């Protein structure tokens, strides 16, 4: 029973990441009708926002500590991050909390990237078939990840969670669960709730939903639906970026992490139902949990290698049995 609970918990935080990425993918797809293969790269860019901020904050300067001397009597030189030197304890606090603080950096940066991508590239592809969209965004993903590789190098750059949540929660004697994963789960739930609230409760969201249903009619009513959809694409980029920022303490970011997540999140979107936001969230958590169950030793002993292929297997079965996905709408991407 303990193992059972642990697997569900383990699955939830991974599922949270899948759900966030799939949510952004579905937003872009449902509004603009664009299949965005560069969405994983946006997740990766978010993670590198956290890396950048951490690098900026921990840039070290050499100071002479007047109170101490080296064993040879000369003044002791100490390296301190300049933020700490300038702001004292405040700086220390800031460095400790660099990952959550990165959220503040990631929101404007990712919004800007999203808007620029949509206006500069994606909007020229609305009228072209999905194969073209897939290919151009695939090329874009390669370009983005190569640029990151040039700047930050090819090795993963570990990030640490704030000290206060760096420990683990002992649920029972046998279940130990890192605090940060709880934070991540809560964070993803909050972001998902915020996106849904934004779409359901605001006038802007209402217009966007109406546009998803029938873009032409909304346009005929004199609403500039294009601009709203552009903003939604920016929002999707922000969601992907935030998912990336908060995931850095769990998985040290490297330049190809986006690609790894992208394939999985496409599978998530398809399982959930192309164009269905609740479907994407549901499928994200579901597949996260299923994957973590499949990686249990007992299951692996019974069906070796199942943990590697279970998600793809489920996707294949779902597509064949229920082609629209779990909660898919009628008429989306059907020929």
């Amino acid at each position: 029973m303990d193992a059972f609970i642990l697997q569900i918990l383990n699955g939830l935080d991974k599922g949270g990441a899948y759900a966030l990425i799939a949510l952004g993918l579905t937003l872009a797809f449902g509004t603009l009708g664009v299949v965005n293969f560069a969405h994983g790269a946006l997740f990766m860019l978010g993670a590198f926002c956290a890396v950048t901020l951490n690098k900026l904050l921990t840039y070290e300067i050499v100071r002479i500590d007047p109170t101490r001397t080296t064993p040879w009597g000369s003044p002791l030189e100490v390296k301190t991050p300049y933020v700490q030197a300038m702001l004292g304890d405040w700086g220390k606090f800031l460095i400790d909390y660099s990952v959550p603080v990165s959220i503040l950096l990631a929101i404007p940066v990712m919004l800007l990237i999203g808007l620029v991508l949509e206006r500069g590239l994606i909007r020229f592809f609305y009228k072209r078939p999905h194969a073209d969209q897939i290919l151009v965004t695939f090329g874009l993903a390669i370009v983005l990840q190569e640029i990151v590789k040039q700047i930050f190098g090819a090795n993963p750059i570990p990030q640490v969670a704030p000290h206060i949540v760096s420990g683990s929660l002992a649920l029972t004697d046998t279940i130990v669960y890192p605090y940060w994963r709880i934070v991540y789960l809560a964070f993803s739930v909050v972001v998902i709730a915020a996106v849904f609230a934004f779409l359901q409760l605001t006038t802007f969201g209402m217009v966007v939903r109406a546009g998803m249903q029938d873009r032409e009619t909304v346009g005929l009513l004199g609403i500039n639906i294009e601009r709203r959809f552009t903003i939604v694409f920016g929002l999707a980029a922000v969601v992907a970026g935030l998912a990336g920022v908060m995931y850095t303490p769990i998985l040290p970011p490297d330049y190809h992490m986006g690609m790894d997540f992208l394939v999985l999140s496409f599978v998530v979107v398809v399982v959930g139902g192309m164009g269905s936001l609740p479907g994407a969230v549901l499928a994200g958590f579901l597949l996260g949990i299923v994957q973590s169950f499949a990686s249990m030793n007992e299951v692996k002993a019974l069906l070796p290698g199942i943990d590697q292929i279970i998600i793809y297997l489920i996707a294949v079965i779902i597509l064949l049995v229920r082609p629209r996905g779990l909660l898919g709408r009628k008429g989306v991407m059907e020929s």
Partner: protein
Amino acid sequence: MKHISKTADFILLGCFALAVALGPFIFAPIGAGYPDLLQKFAIYGIFAIGFNILFGLTGYLSFGHAAFLGVGSYAAVWSFKLVSMELLPAIGLSVLLAGLLALAIGFVSLRRSGIYFSILTLAFAQMCYNMAYSVLTPITNGETGLRVLRTDPRYLDSALGYSAKMPTLFGLEITGWTGYYICGVVLIAAFGLSNAIFRSPFGMTLRAIKSNQNRMGYTGFNSRPYLLSAFVMSGMFAGLAGALLAATDPLAGAERMQWTASGEVVLMTILGGAGTLLGPVIGTGIIKYFENIFSAYNETMLSAMFSFVPDGVREPLVKFMSLFVGDGWQLTLGLIFMAVVIFLPGGVMEGVMRLFRVKHTPRVRSLGDSPQRDMLGESIIEEMPSDYDSSGAHKHPAKNNVTPVAP
């Protein structure tokens, strides 16, 4: 419908064969005249020709073709290990296994179309890739990769008393220039075969499916067997390429099956021009050339190249250029990829055609609606009336896929 004479086809095939035969001399001036690279041109050319039979003719975008290449490689290496160092049994086994895998994957994937098809093939290929690393380690040797050893049994060879260190074809070792010409002959055969498929009633059916699958359905035509045949054929071409890859370099690793490898063959095909006969081969040449030549450049070589530029300008220029060569060649690759899709959806072939202003070559607006052309630039299927494209149903991105009712 335009009729292409058989003579024109034979002339094209002859020119192609001549170009392959003179490959070492043609590519020498641009620094690509060495056998290892030319072998790659030929092998990946076969791969891309096969991919083009599926994507170019039917418009079904598979993102999992590398799986067939990988299976072909593994099958060939096993044949070298267990049967014989001869190439023929290896090719037979590779093509057979890749074809069977394609039959299984195609049977399932082709039940869906559009992006669902792309994602299904991607999922299957990732499944194969992950399995090659985990469950199937006894067969694939996991991360180490499968290699041919001297101590392998090779039952047929030992029965015949034949022994060879390297894979051979009728006793000729498949290395260096011999290797290139063996691959080249196979490439010419593959090209001729694809030419025949393009011209056959079967190829015509595939084009009709791409043009309007719904209308085919309305006329009571079951398109799936044709699609499945095309899928299996292209899988077999990939298996053949995999076997040759294993023969020139008898080491098979799972990284050949990764989805970036699938993306590469898509890129080769569209760069040259999907749906054209020569396009995939040209695209392969360009990509492999970039991969080999550009990734070999480094800063010192760049400085030497730009030695005529004043010192103050040269350093930043070299720094900037070095982003795109050496380790950074993939960045160049991605940029080319985007540029081709944005500006030249018809690929290089389209560009050449437009340059020479060949008649009947309407501008390709996208990969999906690329008019059915062949090498000679003649439209095989009549274009839709121009008001068809601008009808309301097509203007609407979210409804792009809703096929308009026939006017």
